[in-house]
């Protein structure tokens, strides 16, 4: 279980290694605040869906398993949307289409199809917690880079010195693509170094 947990955070980070959930990772990361809100909402729904579907894995026929998962995710997403709209109307407005899009989030659905079918609750718990936290961390990293370079702020606070000229491209679509591409490449370098180290140990 704990092995699964750590895998989700670094080795198999949903966004930067598995390339899942690119849509929220690119769309909500203009600033740290909406990115964190999106990440936490997704993580909570992911944990709930993965656990419930694991419990139901014997009761639901394999053919309709994914359809049931999608419907459950959609219902939970609607609830998350409602809660967000009631308590944080500004964030809800800012997230726009990306919050309801969680209903078919590839992070949630691919984890459910990869883990929940086995029916092991411990595996599902470790995996969903790891993937959820990994997703939040990835979004936080991407949005930190973009907010610092694109606006010179972090979580709305002025961080960069006064002379800093914000690079507007980072708060627009191209900057999102570049940031995620470079972070994913950095994760690649790390994974490769680790792989070659274990090779040497083997020799």
């Amino acid at each position: 279980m704990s092995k699964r947990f750590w895998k989700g955070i670094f080795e198999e980070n949903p966004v930067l290694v598995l390339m899942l959930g690119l849509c929220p990772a690119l769309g909500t990361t203009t600033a740290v605040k909406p990115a964190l809100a999106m990440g936490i909402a997704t993580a909570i729904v992911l944990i709930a869906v993965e656990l419930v579907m694991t419990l139901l894995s014997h009761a639901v026929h394999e053919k309709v398993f994914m359809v049931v998962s999608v419907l459950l995710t959609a219902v939970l997403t609607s609830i998350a949307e409602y809660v967000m709209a009631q308590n944080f109307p500004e964030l809800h407005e800012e997230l726009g289409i990306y919050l309801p899009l969680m209903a078919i989030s590839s992070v949630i659905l691919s984890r459910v199809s990869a883990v929940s079918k086995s029916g092991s609750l411990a595996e599902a718990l470790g995996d969903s917690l790891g993937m959820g936290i990994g997703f939040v961390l990835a979004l936080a990293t991407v949005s930190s880079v973009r907010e610092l370079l694109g606006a010179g702020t972090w979580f709305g606070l002025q961080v960069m010195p006064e002379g800093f000229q914000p690079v507007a491209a980072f708060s627009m679509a191209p900057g999102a693509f570049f940031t995620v591409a470079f972070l994913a490449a950095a994760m690649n370098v790390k994974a490769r170094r680790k792989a070659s180290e274990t090779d040497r140990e083997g020799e």
Partner: protein
Amino acid sequence: MNYVVFAVEAALISNIALSYFLGLSPFPEIGKDKKQTCIGALAMVIVMTLSSLICGVIYRYILVPANAVQAKTVVFVVVILAASGLLALLLRKRAGELESGKAFPVLAVNTAVLGTVLVIVQNDYGVLNGTFYGFMAAVGYLIVIAMLSSIDDELKYSDVPKSFRGVPILLVAAGLMAIAFHGIEVLGG
């Protein structure tokens, strides 16, 4: 409203893949099976137009009068699942080479369709304009996917840094395309 401007806006300037980041889940598969990716994107034009029409009608004439706008996500997901399931059934009969088992999750899980419908509702385009928007957005998506898969072809012959191989370099390409597409807006203005 000028329909030519609206069409260019929907397909290119605010391209769903490059400025809304929708439908990027087939990214890791782009290089692997070009035909499958392109047939999938082509099928999406049909699903997207159909879903935009049905969801537009349901939203305008059922959800808004019934004051049940909160239920829109669930309703749209059901409509899209049904539309893409229907298409998968039809495709299985017509084209044997496209395995419906593979096409169905790609279509159903694809964020592009749901995202487009949500954009239509958010911007209050109405039923007719919304359907037109859905169609043009899907055409724009097809253009981007076709271009990216050709770029991926070219990348095989270039010396890409090891850590960028695969999806990261495609994301860089998409970023550069986003800059280029953004330039079209300036031409129009």
